[in-house]
C-alpha cells in the first residue's frame, strides 16, 4: 500500500499532538534539576539536586503530602466498596427505574467539582462535622464512587448470571457466592477503580478548596505558593508525582498485556482440543 502524502501529514500531526502533550511535563520535570530561582529549563544554569533536599525539609509541604496521602487512602477505601455495591444494585434494576438510578449515580461526574465542594461544606457543617481532610474525603468520594461504579458496571456486563446460580446450586451461601465467584470476576475492574480513586484523590483541587478547613493538600499548597513565589521545590515534587503517575500507567499496561497473552494461549489450546474432538479422537 503506497504511503500517501496525507498519510505522512497525519503521522506528523499525531506526533505533534503527543509531543504537545508530553513536552510541558518534561519542562516541569526538567526544571527541578536546574539551579535557577524561578523554575526554568532555558537557560540551563547548573544541574543540581538541592531542590529535592529542600523539598524534603519543607515542613509545610510534608504536612500537605501527609494530608494528601490520608485523603487518597480514605477516598479509595470509601469509593471502592460504594462504587462496587452501587454497580451491583444498578445491574439488578430494570426498566425506567434503572435509567433513573443511572442518572442519579452519574450526576456527580457531570457536576462541576466546585459545586460538589460547596455543597459538601454547607451540608456537613450543618450537621456539625468540621471542615478538614475527613470532610474532603466525603466530598471527593461522592465523585469518585461514580467512576468506580461505571468501571465495575462495565465489568458486570460480562458476568454470567448462571455462575451465581451454579454456585448457589452447589451449596454456597450468598456471602460465598459473592466472595468466591462474583468478586474474583470483578477484581480487574476493582483494581483499576482503586488505582484511579487513589490518583484522582491525589490531584483533587476544587473539592478540597472548599472542604479542607485549615488542612492543606499538595495541590492547595502549590496553588498558594504560586501566589507567594515559586521555587523549583515544587518542580521536585512534580517530578515525584509524574513518576508515580508513570509507574501507575506502566503497571496497568504490563498487567493488561500479560493477561492478553494468557488469554490467547488458552484459546489456542481450546481450539486444538475442539479439533481433536471433531476428528473423533475424544481424548483428554
Amino acid at each position, binding site marked *: 500500500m503506497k504511503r500517501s502524502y496525507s498519510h505522512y501529514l497525519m503521522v506528523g500531526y*499525531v506526533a505533534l499532538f503527543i509531543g504537545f502533550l508530553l513536552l510541558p511535563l518534561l519542562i516541569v520535570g526538567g526544571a527541578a534539576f536546574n539551579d535557577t530561582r524561578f523554575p526554568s529549563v532555558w537557560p540551563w544554569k547548573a544541574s543540581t539536586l538541592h531542590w529535592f533536599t529542600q523539598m524534603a525539609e519543607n515542613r509545610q509541604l510534608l504536612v500537605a503530602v501527609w494530608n494528601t496521602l490520608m485523603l487518597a487512602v480514605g477516598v479509595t477505601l470509601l469509593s471502592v466498596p460504594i462504587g462496587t455495591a452501587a454497580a451491583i444494585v444498578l445491574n439488578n434494576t430494570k426498566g425506567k427505574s434503572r435509567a433513573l438510578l443511572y442518572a442519579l449515580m452519574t450526576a456527580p461526574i457531570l457536576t462541576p467539582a466546585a459545586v460538589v465542594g460547596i455543597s459538601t461544606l454547607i451540608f456537613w457543617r450543618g450537621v456539625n462535622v468540621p471542615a478538614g481532610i475527613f470532610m474532603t474525603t466525603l466530598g471527593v468520594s461522592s465523585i469518585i464512587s461514580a467512576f468506580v461504579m461505571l468501571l465495575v458496571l462495565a465489568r458486570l456486563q460480562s458476568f454470567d448470571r448462571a455462575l451465581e446460580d451454579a454456585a448457589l446450586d452447589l451449596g454456597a451461601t450468598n456471602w460465598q457466592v459473592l466472595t468466591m465467584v462474583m468478586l474474583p470476576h470483578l477484581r480487574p475492574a476493582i483494581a483499576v477503580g482503586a488505582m484511579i480513586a487513589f490518583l484522582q484523590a491525589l490531584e483533587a483541587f476544587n473539592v478540597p478548596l472548599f472542604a479542607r478547613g485549615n488542612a492543606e493538600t499538595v495541590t492547595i499548597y502549590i496553588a498558594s505558593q504560586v501566589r507567594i513565589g515559586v521555587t523549583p521545590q515544587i518542580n521536585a515534587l512534580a517530578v515525584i508525582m509524574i513518576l508515580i503517575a508513570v509507574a501507575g500507567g506502566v503497571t496497568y499496561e504490563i498487567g493488561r498485556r500479560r493477561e492478553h497473552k494468557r488469554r490467547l494461549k488458552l484459546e489456542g489450546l481450546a481450539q486444538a482440543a475442539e479439533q481433536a474432538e471433531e476428528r473423533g479422537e475424544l481424548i483428554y
Partner: protein
Amino acid sequence: MSDFVRRYGWGLSAILVTLTAFWLLALVWVPYSVMIEKSFRLYLPVSEIGGPSDRYTLANYLSLFDMSASSEFLGLMVPIAVQVFLITVFYSCGVTIICFALAYPAAYFLAKKAAPAQIPTLFLMLAIPLFVSEMLRTFAWFIILAYQGPLNALLDAVGLSKVRWLSGYNGIIIGMVYTYILFMFFPIYNSLTALDNNQIEAAKDLGARSWQVHLNVIMPHAKPGISSGATMVFMFAVGSVLVPTLLGSPNSRWFTEIIIRSMFEGQDWNSAAAYAFLLLLVCLLFVSLVMKLFRVNLADITR
C-alpha cells in the same frame, strides 16, 4: 426487589443497598438539595435566623444583576458579574471547540490508521498526562508562559522580543485546552474504534470526497464520543478554578472567582451557593443542548 434478596440473601442485600443509599443520599443528593435550598435564603447573622427576614427569596441570584457595579460591555451597561458569567461561558465554548478541532484528527488517525502494534504504546503516552494531575498540567504552562519562562527565553535567544503571554485570556485558553483536551480525545477515540472500516470504504466507493466522508459517515458515528467529550470539556472549563487562577492576568476574571470571593472573603455561603447553582444549571443546559443536538442519551455520554 424480592428477586434481588433471593439472589443475595437478606444480610448482603441490606449492605449493598445501604452503601448505595449512603452514597446517593448523604454524599450527593442531600448536600445538593441543602445547597440549593440555602441559595434561596439570605445570609443572616445568627440572631436573625428563624426570624421574619429568614424567608425564601431570589435576592442572592438577583445580586448578580446589581446595576451599581456595572460597566460598558458590547455597547450596553451590563453588571460586571453578568459580564464575567457571559465571558466565562463564551470562552468555555471556545475552548471546547478548539479541543475538538485538535483532538478529532488525532483520534481519527489513531483509531483508523495506526498500526495495531503501536497503539498500546501510543495510548500509554497519551494517558500519562491524564494521570498527572490537573494541577501539574496547569503549573507546567504557568512556568512555560511566565515572563521569565523558557518560551520567552527562547525568543530572546533568537533575537525576538519577549511576549507577555499571560495577558488577557490567552493564558487561560491555552492552559485549558492543554489541560482538558484528553477528555475530548479519549471519548472520540472510543467511538471511532467501533466504526466499521467498510462503511468508510463504501462511501469513498460511491464517490464521496474525504471531507464529505468525515461529515456524513464518520462524525455521525462518533456522535456519542463527541458529545461526551464536549460535555466534559465544557463542564471542566466553566467550573475551573486552577487554570484561571494560575494562568489568568489582572484583567481576566472567571465566574468561579466570584463564587470563591463570596465564599471566603464575604463568608456569604448563601450567595456562593446561588452562584454555584447557576454554574450547575449552565452545565445542565449545555448537556441537554448537546443531547438534543446530537440526539444521544445519557448512557452514551458517560464514558
